[in-house]
Structure formats: structure tokens, C-alpha cells
């Protein structure tokens, strides 16, 4: 667990970051909290000859809640999210999910940007961002662009981000109605065996809108439009929930690992989603 040699950069601004990225292409990687990248480097599974630490770059942190628009800078830590009262009021699901990420020590370092940009199917934030229909801001040599969270993930560790771009912020509309982030894991610090992010809006006793995303059950997060649609227009009776679960099962594609065989993961996913829906509905 000794990494290969690398050059370490600690630029003060985006221009500094971009110039290293442009010079070294995919030989350079940016470092946020480091919880994914550093272990990969120590295991020599990731070769990063040029490592750009973002800690000193101005303007990458901060949470702003402006009306119903939430913007979270990439270097915002999970601890910052848990600690931010305005965010907890605007989007309580962010706090609920963040509290289920590893342990306090990890959350003091782990960032939103790193969590969403790395493309690790085990990370919790990508599914959550898809559930929230968030937008990611990317900055590259040609300036800034945005991409929808639901279009961002291509495969494990493969995203729409170009090698010379960095993800600088996530933003979304403050969700309305009920919410829940439910996660089954083997222990503190583990990735999800199955996790579900659910948002439900209730109007006149019926579900008027819903959004459902699943984590670590495919090589990308799964935003299950069909599962949400199965709930809309119903009063969330057993049949509706069963239909939503069935629709979700049609969208996920888990693999065997030490957390269990596919059959178990599909069962766990259905239980976790059912519980998340029930919790979200009770809060709607």
C-alpha cells in the first residue's frame, strides 16, 4: 500500500488547476477529499503522475440556498452538509443521506464534488443527485458548462466529464414533499448493499410527483423513472408500492460480491425501496 511517485500541485485558483490538467491530460487528476483516489493510488490501481490538490482553490466551497435554488460547491464536505441549517431545511434528504456516509472522520474530509465526480457506483451522492434532478457545473479550458446528473454517469468510473474538466458545483431545486434515504450496509464505512433515495409529493391524499434513485445496484446509479411513475396518481396502497418495486427491479442490474449474491441484492433492494417509499410518504 505504497503509492508510486507523483508530482503534487496545490494551485490557488482555477487557472492553475486547468493549466496542469491541460499540460498532462489523463496523467493528471484532481484531489478533493481523497477517500477514493488515495486508496486506489496506494493499491497502485490508479496511476496518477500529477496530483492536483484542490484544497486551496478559491470559490469551490460553500452552500447557498437562494429561494428554492440550492447550490453546493464541489469542495463542500459531508460534514458541512450535515451542519448547515439552511440546507437541512431546504433539502433534508441531503442531511439524512450524508449521515449515512461512513463515519465522522470520513465526513470531515469527504466532499460532494469528489463523491459525485468519481463515478464510483458505491458512492451515495450520485443516486441522490439523480433523485433530486441536480445539475452539475463543469469547468474546462473552454469555460463552464452544465450537465444533468441523470445524464452524467456512463459506467463505473466513466462519466461525461472530460479529462481536462473539473466539476465545480452541484445545484438543484429544493425538493417539496416527503423524502427518505434508506441504506443497508454491512458496517460503518461500507458501501451500500442497497440504498434508495425517494422524494414524494402528496396532493389531496394522492401522490402527485415522485422521484426514485438506487445506489450500488448497477455500474451506475439508477434513476428509475418507471418506479416513480408507478406511484404517481395512487394513494400508495400496497399494489402501487409493489408496482414501483417491480419497476425498480426491472432497472437495476446488481452483481455478486462479498455483500451477497444477485438474488439477495435484488431482495434487499426491494425491501429498502419499500421502506424508503413508506417513510417518504409518511413525511409527505
Amino acid at each position, binding site marked *: *500500500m*505504497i503509492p*508510486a*511517485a507523483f508530482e503534487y500541485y496545490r494551485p490557488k485558483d482555477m487557472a492553475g488547476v486547468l493549466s496542469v490538467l491541460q499540460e498532462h491530460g489523463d496523467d493528471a487528476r484532481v484531489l478533493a477529499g481523497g477517500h477514493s483516489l488515495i486508496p486506489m493510488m496506494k493499491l*497502485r490501481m490508479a496511476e496518477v503522475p500529477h496530483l492536483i490538490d484542490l484544497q486551496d482553490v478559491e470559490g469551490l466551497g460553500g452552500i447557498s440556498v437562494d429561494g428554492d435554488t440550492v447550490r453546493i460547491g464541489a469542495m463542500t464536505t459531508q460534514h458541512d452538509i450535515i451542519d448547515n441549517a439552511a440546507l437541512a431545511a431546504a433539502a433534508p434528504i441531503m442531511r439524512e443521506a450524508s449521515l449515512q456516509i461512513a*463515519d465522522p472522520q470520513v465526513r470531515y474530509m469527504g466532499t460532494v464534488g469528489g463523491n459525485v465526480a468519481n463515478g464510483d457506483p458505491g458512492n451515495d451522492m450520485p443516486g441522490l443527485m439523480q433523485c433530486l434532478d441536480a445539475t452539475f457545473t463543469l469547468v474546462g479550458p473552454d469555460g463552464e458548462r452544465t450537465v444533468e446528473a441523470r445524464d452524467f454517469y456512463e459506467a463505473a468510473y466513466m462519466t461525461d466529464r472530460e479529462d481536462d474538466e473539473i466539476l465545480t458545483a452541484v445545484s438543484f431545486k429544493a425538493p417539496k414533499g416527503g423524502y427518505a434515504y434508506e441504506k*443497508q450496509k*454491512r*458496517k*460503518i*464505512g*461500507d*458501501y451500500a*448493499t442497497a440504498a434508495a433515495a425517494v422524494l414524494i409529493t402528496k396532493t389531496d391524499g394522492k401522490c402527485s410527483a415522485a422521484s426514485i434513485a438506487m445506489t450500488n445496484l448497477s455500474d451506475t446509479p439508477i434513476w428509475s423513472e418507471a418506479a416513480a411513475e408507478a406511484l404517481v396518481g395512487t394513494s400508495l396502497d400496497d399494489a402501487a408500492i409493489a408496482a414501483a418495486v417491480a419497476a425498480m427491479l426491472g432497472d437495476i442490474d446488481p452483481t455478486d460480491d*462479498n*455483500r*451477497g*449474491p444477485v438474488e*439477495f441484492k435484488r*431482495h*434487499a433492494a426491494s*425491501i*429498502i425501496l419499500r421502506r424508503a417509499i413508506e417513510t417518504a410518504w409518511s413525511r409527505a
Partner: protein
Amino acid sequence: MNKELTREERADALGGMGCKRKRVEDARFTQGKGNYVDDIKLPGMLQGDFVRSPYAHAKIVSIDASAALALDGVVAVLTAEDLAPLGLHWMPTLAGDKQMVLADGKVLFQGQEVAFVVAKDRYIAADAVELVEVEYEELPVLTDPFAAMESDVVLREDLLGEGGSLPDGAHGPRKHHNHIFTWEVGEKDATEQVLQEADVVAEEMVYYHRTHPCPLETCGCVASMDKVNGKLTLHGTFQAPHAIRTVVSLISGIEEHNIRVISPDIGGGFGNKVGAYPGYVCSVVASIVTGVPVKWVEDRMENLMTTAFARDYWMKGKISATKEGKITGLWCHTTADHGGFDACADPTKFPAGFMNICTGSYDIPTAYLAVDGVYTNKAPGGVSYRCSFRVTEAAYFIERMIEILAIELNMDAAELRRINFIKKEQFPYQSALGWEYDSGDYHTAWDKALKAVDYDGLRAEQAQRVEDYKAGKTRKLMGIGLTHFTEIVGAGPVKNCDILGLGMFDSCEIRIHPTGSAIARLGTISQGQGHATTFAQILATEIGLPADSITIEEGDTDTAPYGLGTYGSRSTPVAGAATAMAGRKIRAKAQMIAAYLLEVHDDDVEFDVDRFVVKGAPEKFKTMKEIAFAAYNQAIPGIEPGLEAVSYYDPPNMTYPFGAYVCVMDIDVDTGVTEIRRFYALDDCGTRINPMIIEGQVHGGLTEALAVALGQEIAYDDMGNVKTGTLMDFFLPTAWEVPNYETDHTVTPSPHHPIGAKGVGESPHVGGVPCFSNAVNDAFRAFGLRHTHMPHDHWRIWKTANGLGLHG
């Protein structure tokens, strides 16, 4: 003028046995001031690192180190070819087998040491490892011991005789080329007859999965050969520093007085640091070759994948009883997966350790045990992970078999235990498999435990839960885990316990200083157990000087007396006894000095807490402090100056700690998630030296038991790849996963131990594993489950529930 202290106040002031003395070690550990192997930095020190095999079974076609050697900062790359002229490419194991130090033509497990790179720093060494080119030719892989016993594939060609014959191994005849030994204890025919004639026989295969002790500090060493004076100094994470010195001497040919082995602070051992590893041999050779110190410290993956694993026992059991539930016989056949080399750490005459304690706490008149050791393509080891030589396996086996027998008899498992316990008046008790249990009072402990948890109330609640479940009111089942374990620790009597011919006594040497403080050195070595605290307490009580005035030192073979080290809960039973005995020698001489000073006959003074008093005239006394000064500074006719003693203690018997544990667990049938609602642990470790340290040991042992029972494993795929090589997958519980523990005790002193102490460090692990596992199994008893294997992680519990049709 000081007020005269009462007798009790004087005793309290000593901080002796029975008090909750705070750990003297913690000041440095809690401030980051410990001194571990990796903290040792010697001038000019080089760093070693291994090239390891990615394959579980392969022929080595070639090794090309030229690119590595060309890297700036690389000093040497050692291979088996370099070690062969010294005869060091293989080394003896503790089990009488031999093990490759570096791959000699083939590899037998993933992660096996192939070449040793020596470089100027740790980073260069790691870079160079990547540059060593090894060409492998893959061979068929055997990961299943039953398949290995049928297979034509030969794992150990080195053990074949002429024409492919099978010469005897270290423990007798071998049945197959992948077979290591058969060990039989008890009466086979008689047991089989009892089983045949029994009213009821319960039969089950109980698998105790492979796991790993996983101490927080991994294994490592710093070897330093001084070519001028010919002395080798070896700092290392050794649980048995003196034995390591002897073994290094025997292997290397360096005379023992020229070897100094030092175990500095050790960050947990749990058996992982008992054995000798290739890293030690390679570091020593590299230091001899280069003339400068060489450090090797394994990383976490190397620790989990290559240094000693634990368990991996397939235990086929049969237990018979009358229809009233009186056990009549026990039969066990164990298939033991030892990996590529037999490197188990057991006393020589016990190739399956003390597995023959598997009759447990029960009066079982007839029993038979056979163990077959088998080679596979897995890492070697088979150490006692927080237990005494396979006692954990034995306790798990009998405590599962009892539960299964209870199902067969349709009886309550607590009652079944009660009617079969060895009775208090039966001690010393001769077990059917050859042990003499020294003492016990199982019924008292059991009744106390069941009362403490309101056992009948728990069973009523559980029955209601089953009704509620069946009525669709809940998806959570409730399990009540019971265990009554008997351990066998304190190895051991030299007449039947040795490792590689080294008798398993232990030792203590005491020097009293003129001003009445002292240093005591022991042959053991603490890895977190708190020896510096507890051994000083034993001495404080024995010699009447304050514990705070007694330094305890261990781990340096140049200064400490010879002993076999710390594992198998042997420190208190053996070295603790030596400490008390050495203390009594001090006291005997002090008595003569006191008598001289008080101008009375030796027999006219008696020891009183911290002094000798004239019998019948307690106002006439000499304190131990005064006696110490006189011992050095006053000419006393017929008595040599000084106050020192040494004791080598060969225990007359093992000690037999026991305990009664109850676990209450809720299980989510749908997710397989377990929640421990309550855990009650009653331990009887005989005389209690420091209740606070005992409680800490119980908490730690239970937590490691929880880990093993609920998820901790070393798993392999069919290709022999380790699937659990990091702490992401290898379960090490944190504060989050650990429940609250309720501790309790009874005290049944060991009749043969000088202070009646029995050892406690491993009891909670031995008893904890079956207790957690029994809780899981018990939760499903009402739905027809007889037995499900550990580890009880979420998916396996889900699978059990699924198999019982609980998912609709």
C-alpha cells in the same frame, strides 16, 4: 506525626491484587508515545519488501530482477536461489513441517513470498517490487480440503518419497499426498457402540470458517547484524521473543548468546505474532549480506492474505443421549484445512491443539475425536486467534451440538446443559478425551446467568414474537443465544507441552532495590494485556511493596529470563505463577532479615501486608522497605547481601476458566440485519487480579467474537484468490457495531495455581462466538432450522430465512 494506618489502609496503599489499578501503560499509548517496530529507525537502515505471487498454485518458470536492480536506490533482490547456499530457502514451521521462505520452484498460495527487495527507502522498495519480472505457469488450484483429499494434483512434491511414496509426516502416517496427519483421541469403538445403542443421536456438520486475528499493528521486524562483534539484534512483533531467539539460532547457526531479540510495544497479537515468517528470515539474511540494519513491515493486505490465519475446521459431529437428555457419547471427525504448509502453532504433541477439550462443560462418559489435516492452496497458519490452541473450535463445536441435540430431544437448551454439567463435587474431573479439569462450579454460574437475564421471561417473549410473526405483525425474529464454555489454558506442563522441543514453562526474575522499589522481568510479552499493571499487583501483594514502586519489564532476551511468551491465555497461569513464586522467595529471605533486625527467631515473625511483625507483638515490626535497605547495607551473619529471586514455573496442570453467556438478538428476516439487544457475560477466571482489566479483556474478546460470528472471514474464490484482503471486506467492528456488554463473575480459584488465577484474555472470545451464533440459530428454531454456518452476515441470514420459506 503520621497517623498509624490500619491494616486495610496499608493494603490499599500497595495497589495489590483485587484492586482496579489504572493501567500504567496507558499514559504512553494514549499520548502516541508507544514504541512499535515501525517506530524503530537505526542508522543506515534499509527497507525490505516482497514480490508476492498473484497465483494460488503455479510453477515459477523464471525470475528476472535486472530491471529492479537497475533502479536507483535498490541494494539487493533475494530469491530462493540466493538463500539456498545458506540452507535458508526453507524454514521449519512450529508444526514440524517446513515452509518456503522464498518460492522454491513453485508457489502454493496467493500472496506467497517470491523475492525480497532491499532498498534505501520504503517507496523505492515498493517501486522495485513492480519491476521484478516473474514468469509463472499456472497449476490446478485446490481450495476445498475434501476435494484435495481426492485429487491427483500434488501440492507438496517435496514431501514425496522415492517413486512417489508417502513417508510419514511429523505426526505419523499420511493417507494421501495432500494429507498432513491424522490425530485420534478417545475410544472409537466404544463411542460408536454408544451411538448405536442410544435413544437419540444428533448429527451435524459444523463448519468454523477461516478467519484472521488481524491485530491493528501488522507483523514486522528490524534485523541488525553487527559484523564487528558478531551480534545480531532482532526487533520484532514477537509474541514469544525467547523462542524466536532459539529458533533463529537453530536456523541460522548463529550462537544464541550472539542473538538479542527485542519485542518492543506490540499493537495486538491474538496469535498472529506467534509464528516465524519469511519476512523475519529475509530481513536477517539481508542484514548479514548488506552489513546494515534491514526493516520489514507488512501492510494490511499482506497481513490478511499471508500471515497466520485462524480456524478453517470442518467438524462432523454426533452426540447421543437418553430420551431424558443425559448425554451418553460424543463423536467428532474434523477435516482441518491447513493451507499450503502446516504452520499451525500448537504444542508438538497436539497437532490439532486442544481440540480434545470438545466435551466442553459436560460429563460425557464416552467420546472419540479424529482430526485430519489437509494441504490446500491457501495461506498457512492455523493459529489460536484469541484462544488457546483450537479451544475456540472445540467450544463452538460442542455448544452447537448441544443446541442441535436440544432440538432433537425437543428440550430447552438451558435445561439440557444443566442436567449434563460436570458437578462441582466431580472436580478434579477426568474427561473422556484425556484432560483433568482442575476446578469448576458450573451450576452456580449457570443459575446466576439465567436469573440475571430472566431467562424464562425471555423465552416467553420469544414465543410471543413467533406468534406475532406468524400473524404478520412483525418481520423480526428473536434469538436467545446460550453458551456455557470451559476453556483449557496456561500451556503448559513441560511433561506434555513443548513447541519444537522447547518446554512451555515461564519465568520471573525480581530485583529489589535498596530503597524498597523493584524491577521484575518476565519471559512473557504484553501486546495490550496490561502486564506491567497486573504483574506488579501480584508482586505488591506477595512482597509488600507498592505496585507503583515495581517496574515490570518484558521482551528483551538479553535481560529477561527465558520463557515461552504470551498466547493461549498463558501469561497469568504460567508467568503469573512464576511471579508469585519468585515473590515468595523474596519474602522468605526478607523474613530472615526481619528476624535478625528484630532480634527474634525466624519463626517468630510473620508477614503482615507490607511488613514482618513479631508474632503476638504487632508493634514490633520491620517494613519491607526497611528490610530491603538492610538487605544491601547491613552485614547480617549467614545471609548474603542483596534481595533478588528468580523462579521458573512449570505448571502441574492447565487451568480451566469457564463462563456462562447469554445473547438476545433481533433479526430482520427480510434484510438479514441483526441487532444485539443484550449480551450478558459471566466469567469465572478464578482469583481476579484487576477487575478493570478483566472487564476490558471481556469487552475486547466479545467484540472479536461478534466479528467472527457475524461476518469476519478470509474467503477465497475457486481460483484461490483472496476475496477479503482489505478492511473494506474483512469485518473489523467499530464502536458503532458493538453492543453494550453486561459483565458478571463467580470466583472458583484454581487449586494448583499459587494465587488461584486461571487467565481470562481469551475466555470471552471462546464463549462469545458460539453465543452469538447460537442466538442466530435459535431465532429460526421455531421454523425448523437445525444449523446454519457462520459467518452470519446479512446475505447468509437472508439465505437461511429464504430456505425456510420465510419470504413468502
